[in-house]
């Protein structure tokens, strides 16, 4: 039943085993054809680079090493020295100062970048000399002072004085706790 197939295979094998004679000028003619092709060196380099970049690779690593890399990444991305370690609660704080004959009074301190224009204080009543301001503060220790008429600095008589006052104008400190 399989005899014809075996004969066919035998013939094919015999044919394939015949020695082949190649023309001696074949190599030269093929290379000549190759040289005539248009040059594509830049595209070829880009193609090679793209192929190098997109070729999947196998990178051996220890699980411990991968965990260390991930931990370093998370620590560097999340860590900021100025950031509080946990979300801070905000409390409203009222500041009061008596400044007779003042035209303007500003509350200036660490909480508003020492910007005299940021927190103007309000008179309690039109004809009185009591000025107030209420601002939100997160827990911490803040230096501040009152600036009267844009030229005169007043410390808060109701608060501790800032000891390290290097600038020759008085400041006070307020400490906001969290518990």
């Amino acid at each position: 039943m399989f005899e014809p197939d075996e004969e066919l295979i035998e013939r094919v094998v015999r044919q394939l085993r015949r020695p082949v004679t190649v023309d001696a000028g074949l190599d030269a003619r093929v290379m000549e054809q190759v040289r005539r092709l248009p040059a594509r060196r830049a595209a070829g380099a880009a193609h090679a680079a793209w192929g190098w970049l997109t070729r999947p690779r196998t990178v051996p690593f220890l699980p411990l090493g991968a965990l260390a890399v991930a931990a370093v990444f998370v620590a560097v991305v999340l860590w900021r020295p100025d950031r509080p370690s946990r979300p801070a609660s905000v409390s409203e704080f009222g500041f009061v100062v008596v400044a007779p004959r003042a035209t303007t009074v500003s509350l200036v301190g660490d909480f508003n970048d020492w910007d005299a224009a940021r927190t103007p204080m309000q008179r309690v009543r039109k004809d009185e000399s009591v000025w107030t301001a209420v601002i939100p503060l997160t827990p911490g220790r803040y230096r501040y002072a009152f600036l009267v008429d844009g030229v005169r600095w007043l410390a808060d008589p109701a608060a501790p004085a800032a000891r390290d006052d290097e600038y020759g104008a008085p400041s006070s400190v307020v400490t906001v706790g969290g518990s």
Partner: protein
Amino acid sequence: MTLLLAATLVALQAATQGPDPRLQRLDSISRPIVTALVDSARAAALPTEPLVQRALEGTTKRATPDRIVAAVRRLALDLGHARDALGPTASPTELVAAAAALRAGAPPATLTELRRIRRESLTVPLAVLTDLVGSGVPVDSAAAAVLSLAAQARDADLVEFRRAVERDIALGAPPASATAAAAAFAAAAVQVNAGARQQRPGPP
């Protein structure tokens, strides 16, 4: 490879944090020096916001450039000493309060002991210690009183303690005696409050 990645990320993070735009308010003499001091503090993992604020305070108060630079430099040193005393886990607000306490004369060992005995933030205990010294209380008496209260007292208890001391001093009591008396009273109150808190039923 891990070190290389970490160094790259740190460099990228530093590159993304350019000069603080608020420092543009400084004069041309102090600005580059303060900027360098802030950069150095950032590289040393110290909080930079207090340094910026101290510089802004100086420029708002029309201080001379050399005084601004000196103040910022001194605060940077104090923050470094504060971290040495409190350890690397100290928060920025704790470091600011600790720097003020050290500047007031508190021994570094007192700060380290506070860290050891108190689980909550040290900002208020350190501020109370500084304020007491500022009120004329000898630093040893102030430190002993704060240490005796810090383990159990809440921030509000400590602030109330400081007010009591200042009130008694204003009424004529010697500072050390006023501190000892107020500390004893506050300790008793803290014990009562702590007992009440323990007996209070918790959430279901």
